[in-house]
């Protein structure tokens, strides 16, 4: 029997993206249907650049200098989440607060890389040349801005979250699993309060290269994620998203109201052979189906990549025409690891406001919502691997 004391409440949200920061700015832009994509800076690649953020309000200048953008985005979003949960600076809680961060990393100094690539072809001793240039040109602290677990490290240093610190890697699935493990630990009484989320800097040529290897990037002009055709394409987005998850008992003891609750988080992995993704989603869906009530909505984390997004489209279409589906990636771009926590945050906001943002999809999958949603299923389908679902509900 589930123990209501161990219900998983969302008590804090910290989000930042191309749409701005915080619930209001995100909701206003989504409702207005504002597209923030940029096709010029990295032409022909389309990206969603971070909106200007007042980093200094969460991160001392001295600490910012030790960080690369992805870490600043994440440490900033984590601070917003702690503020939102009312635990910022509360050392009693922070000292036992658990943390799971979903992270990539490896942010490169493209100027150093370019100079080495330019010189190495002309060198008689290329290996020795590489050693010499790396020894002289790499900033010693750059490594600490590249290590995947150093976003968590920075959050410990800047915000004092130290109960535990774990970093999951592995693209979209890392974000799904971070939330899944955090929620499982709370439900089982292994943890009372967890900071979970991640960050992504989409304005990186080295990352564009990684996705361009697989032919996954969106080039030319922006389109809604469902309309990117057979070739598909993901537009990298800069975004940070953190949630404070808390057991109902722990939240009530400190007099805190929930923004929403997480009723289920499920994750799977298919090998993406023909039909495998849809079977995986169907199997995950089977685990939450009995909990769904008429009028639920779906907030999809579709990336736009092919064939994953087309497969997800087909799966959602089969659910029936009465279900309101929305894809936030049309507006946010795709941020890999933090995409799932971001969409859980947006689902909590939508439940709180009792509305969804308008459809934007010429394929007809996204339909106007008939009524205020009380349940939202968040999907997280990786562009290459990993399938996830979460059921987010109003907590009252």
């Amino acid at each position, binding site marked *: 029997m589930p123990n209501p004391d161990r219900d998983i409440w969302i008590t804090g949200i910290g989000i930042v993206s191309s749409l701005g920061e915080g619930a209001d700015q995100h909701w206003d832009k989504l409702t207005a249907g504002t597209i923030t994509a940029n096709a010029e800076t990295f032409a022909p690649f389309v990206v969603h650049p971070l909106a200007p953020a007042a980093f200094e309000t969460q991160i001392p200048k001295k600490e910012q200098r030790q960080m690369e953008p992805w870490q600043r985005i994440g440490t900033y979003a984590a601070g917003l989440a702690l503020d939102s949960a009312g635990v910022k600076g509360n050392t009693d809680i922070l000292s036992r607060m658990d943390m799971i961060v979903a992270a990539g990393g490896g942010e490169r100094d493209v100027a150093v890389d370019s100079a080495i690539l330019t010189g190495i072809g002309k060198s008689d001793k290329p290996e020795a040349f590489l050693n010499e240039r790396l020894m002289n040109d790499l900033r010693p602290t750059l490594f600490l801005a590249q290590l995947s677990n150093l976003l968590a490290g920075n959050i410990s240093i800047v915000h004092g979250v*130290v109960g535990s610190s774990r970093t999951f890697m592995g693209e979209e699935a890392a974000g799904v699993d971070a939330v899944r493990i955090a929620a499982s630990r709370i439900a089982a009484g*292994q943890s009372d309060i967890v900071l979970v989320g991640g960050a992504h800097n989409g304005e990186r040529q080295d990352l564009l290269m990684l996705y361009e290897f697989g032919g996954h990037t969106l080039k030319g002009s922006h389109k809604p994620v469902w309309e990117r055709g057979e070739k598909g394409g993901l537009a990298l987005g800069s975004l940070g998203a953190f949630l404070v998850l808390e057991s109902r008992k722990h939240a009530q003891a400190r007099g805190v109201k929930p923004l929403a609750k997480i009723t289920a988080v499920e994750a799977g992995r298919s090998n993406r052979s023909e039909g495998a993704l849809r079977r995986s989603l169907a199997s995950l869906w089977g685990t939450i189906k009995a909990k769904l009530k008429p009028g639920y909505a779906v907030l999809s984390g579709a990336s736009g990549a092919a064939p994953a997004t087309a497969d997800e489209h087909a799966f959602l279409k089969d659910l029936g025409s009465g279900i309101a589906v929305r894809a936030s990636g049309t507006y946010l771009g795709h941020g890999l690891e933090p995409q799932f926590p971001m969409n859980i945050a947006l689902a909590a906001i939508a439940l709180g406001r009792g509305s969804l943002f308008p459809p934007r999809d010429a394929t007809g999958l996204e339909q106007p919502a008939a009524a205020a949603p009380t349940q939202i299923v968040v999907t997280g389908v990786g562009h290459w*691997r990993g399938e996830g679902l979460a059921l987010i509900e109003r907590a009252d």
Partner: protein
Amino acid sequence: MTAMQDKAGRPIVVVTGMGVVTSLGTGKADNWAKLTAGQSGIRAISRFATDGLKTRVAGTIDYLTKEPLNTAAMSEMLADLAVEEAVAESGIGAKGDFPGPLFLAVPPVELEWPQRREVAVASGANDAIDYRDLLRVSAQFPTYHSRFMFGSVADHIADRFGTKGSPISLSTACASGTTAIQLGVEAIRRGETDAALCVASDGSVNQESLIRFSLLSALSTQNDVPETASKPFSKNRDGFVMAEGAGALVLESLASAKARGAKILGVVEGCGELADSFHRTRSSPDGKPIIGCMVNALNDAGLTPQDIDHINAHGTSTPENDKMEFTGTDKVFGEHAKAIPITSNKSMIGHTLSAAGAVEAVITLMTLQHQRIPPTINYLVPDPAIPLDVVGNTARDAKITHALSNSFGFGGQNASLIFGREPA
């Protein structure tokens, strides 16, 4: 009748299979023989040119492949070997059908210089090359996408060994292997699964990785006699030695292991962690996070400091780590600290980084099994500031019931595990 739950009413978690690969060799038997003989796996680096480098030694695994591999491919190969051994020993499930989830500690994955250069050459640019040139031809290299995904090694292991659910790849820097075990313990304690495959692998000795650590002044520069470069707890220690390796453990609930008549290799009695908010690479000078980490592990195991009779140290051989590990140990164990034989496997196998927690967990469990402690070699000039009972230079027989294994990493990552013998 054996109790299936611990004092806290949680399922007891046992180890029923283990595998290990280090620079000393492949497999538990080979490693144990060499570890107890005090042999070093550290050697001069031959994999890449070391011209101009301050550090030219490492615990590379050179006996498995002639071809230099990238970090992801090397980590995958080492993990494969360790998992094969562990799964075979445990006899659990069926071939390619492991009945539980995978928790895998791996180094961060990224494109490396050989591939970057290959793409640069393909771009045909011969003046100033920049990323726009690389991006122009990147689509000609489709296999690099999946190879350099962070989740790629876990995806391969999950496919090959048939683990269930979404495999988790994780990093807590040099505590990663320990965290992988901890995640497995927690999943079994939650009753989500009867078994978990916990693996840690690191094959990241390449030019840029070595230079990154070198620029942080973390590495030993005692290159002349590679075997003696790593000297934990010695006064003349000057840094750690990078190394490769992998460790794998099959964790199971005691009830499940008993039910299928599996041989029990040891018990994971407790896990502890506590992050440090002091600095990105240095521990809080008061040692509080390290102390709290070990105390959390003791509390989780329901043991007192007096119950611990062996410590498998993090013992990296850096001036900072070994001093801080002493400070923490001294505070937690008080007078008893000097009575606990402590050793650092890193003296022989180097620092296997992401893999260290799991490699050293396997060695700690073998220590419990054989009631014999592998030595800390190169312990010729003991650091007087570290008055601990270091098992110096030669292996020692000892009666051990509960052993503590520590892992501390960059980014304030501290994690400790306590292992015990099969419950009566």
